[in-house]
């Protein structure tokens, strides 16, 4: 058994004479959560549409468990569950009826399985209501339920955190991790906001103008973290800055009555200790940007991020 769940091989898409996707190649392993990040219009949704066969490929191939989406569509797509853009449901049918509808289109989905996914996404209560009355968060969950019905090996979620409140995002994060770890599902999540999905991903691929410009292992990125940006609320703030400069040789800038500085992780307690010794009042210390975000900002160019 190969560990690769899905593989993109030099995938291209040309519409008119515009190159939308210019040769994407990457693979997603089983049990891995892969974040697909890029500014709006970078080609995320187009790529996802090609992965699930909604759009034809202008070049290259997508293989799902080794089956080509071009030549062996049915075997390939059988292993995929997906939400593409918004999770649109039949508004005049109940949540349950929507699920039954899709269940009929796939082999071997039992009644028990339908009940199981309803419970997994926590829709037991509103499942008998019309989907047209659902909030975006509920539709998002119904969308995930629909994608999980046939126990796919690959789960593709396009902007799954869109329109969800923080609690909802945390919940989705929890069962995506669970799916990957317990059921060995390969999960692909797209988003234009790194911060929203960073915590649930194992690897993150960055797409810009139809090209994959970086793929980063999230754990590796945080492990090698030494240099962190921190923000500190302290009073009196100017005196604090002076102390830091004199005692530690750190140049801190004062922005909106807050100290902003870059230090090695290990020195944070020492700085705090020093300031306390000088009777500076410290209200909070926050790390501002992860290095991953810094890295991606540099790659994309800050002015282009959506």
């Amino acid at each position, binding site marked *: 058994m190969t560990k690769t769940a899905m593989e993109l091989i030099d995938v291209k898409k040309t519409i008119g004479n515009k190159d939308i996707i210019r040769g994407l190649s990457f693979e997603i392993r089983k049990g891995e959560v892969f974040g697909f990040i890029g500014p709006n219009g970078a080609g995320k949704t187009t790529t996802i*549409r090609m992965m699930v066969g*909604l759009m034809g490929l202008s070049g290259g191939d997508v293989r799902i468990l080794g089956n080509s989406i071009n030549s062996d569509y*049915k075997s390939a*797509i059988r292993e995929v569950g997906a939400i593409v*853009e918004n999770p*649109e449901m039949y508004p005049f049918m109940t949540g349950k009826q929507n699920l039954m509808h899709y269940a009929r289109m796939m*082999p071997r989905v039992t009644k028990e399985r339908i009940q199981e996914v309803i419970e997994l996404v926590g829709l037991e209560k509103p499942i008998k209501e019309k989907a047209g009355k659902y909030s975006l968060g509920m539709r998002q969950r119904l*969308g995930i339920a629909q994608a999980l019905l046939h126990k796919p090996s690959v789960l593709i979620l396009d902007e799954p955190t869109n329109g969800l409140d923080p609690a909802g995002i945390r919940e989705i994060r929890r069962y995506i991790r669970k799916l990957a770890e317990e059921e060995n599902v390969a999960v692909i999540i797209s988003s234009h906001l790194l911060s929203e999905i960073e915590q649930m991903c194992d690897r993150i691929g960055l797409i810009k103008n139809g090209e994959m410009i970086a793929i980063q292992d999230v754990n590796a990125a945080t492990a090698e973290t030494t240099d962190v940006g921190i923000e500190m609320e302290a009073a009196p703030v100017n005196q604090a800055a002076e102390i830091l400069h004199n005692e530690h040789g750190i140049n801190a800038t004062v922005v909106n009555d807050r100290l902003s500085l870059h230090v090695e992780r290990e020195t944070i307690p020492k700085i705090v200790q020093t300031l306390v010794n000088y009777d500076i009042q410290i209200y909070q210390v926050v790390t501002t940007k992860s290095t991953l975000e810094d890295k991606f900002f540099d790659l994309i160019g800050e002015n282009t991020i959506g």
Partner: protein
Amino acid sequence: MGNFFQLLVNEQLKLYIRKSTWIMYILIALLVLGLAFINHNAMENSRTYEASQDDNWRQTLQDENAEMQKEMEQKEMMQGAYTGQIEKNNYYLENDIQPRSYDTWQFVMENKFLLSLVSLLTIIIAAGIVANEFKWGTIKLLLIRPITRTKILASKYVSVLLFALLTLLFVLIFSWIVGALFFGVNGLNPHIVLNQSDGYAYVSIIGEIIEGYGLQLITLVMMATFAFMISTIFRQSALAIGLAIFLMLSGNAIVGFFSHYDWAKYILFANTNMNQYINGSPMFDGMSLGFSIAVLAVYYVVFLVISWVFFTKRDIAGH
């Protein structure tokens, strides 16, 4: 084949779960009831031989004829108004057939014009069945299944035909039941004297019903398929409904407008009316039943192939 049946179940559910579909049926039901009511009231005054079930029906018919003859002679305005009726009565007398009173079978037969309503509703369904999936955005979730697009399209098309069939059956059965309540039932296979192309004849009403409804089915299927095609090309139902209904209503006018051209006989609507062969008077020279069937078949196949090409080959892109 197993999952094709499941797809049909899905499509039928999506049709019949919606209130708008039920409103269509309620409309038909109200119309049938209304027609029965009007017929019933009109009949009250004109049932001359209704009471005379026994042997004096001949006398009743003769009296009726004499009366009509007299009226036509007396009043300038009524000149020739009853000749048809008199001829019909004479046919009964000559062939020694006792006329049947108006009953549910005749009511069903007369209601064959309701089939244009069925056509209209079928067009609406055909125009929406693909376009609505795009409107709702559900097309994406529908197409990412281990089922070919061809099969999904086929299930939708068959669903349209199934809808037409069910609605047609509804019109027939509901008309029959309402007719039976209002006018009674005269046997299981009653015959009636009708004006055919070669004069009056004694025919089976059920045969007439099958012919009357059957011939209209051609237009129904052709226009529904046309609406289905437009809806798969443009992915919106309003245009498909509008175009199909416009063409259905103006079909004859279009043929008339181009009638002095040689190619007018190839126009779809010159061939949908099979009555022209039953009456023995084709619209254009060189037309025959075989010719019309061939022309219809070509249109039909073209409509379906275009639908298929657009549905299976095109990308499902964003809105």
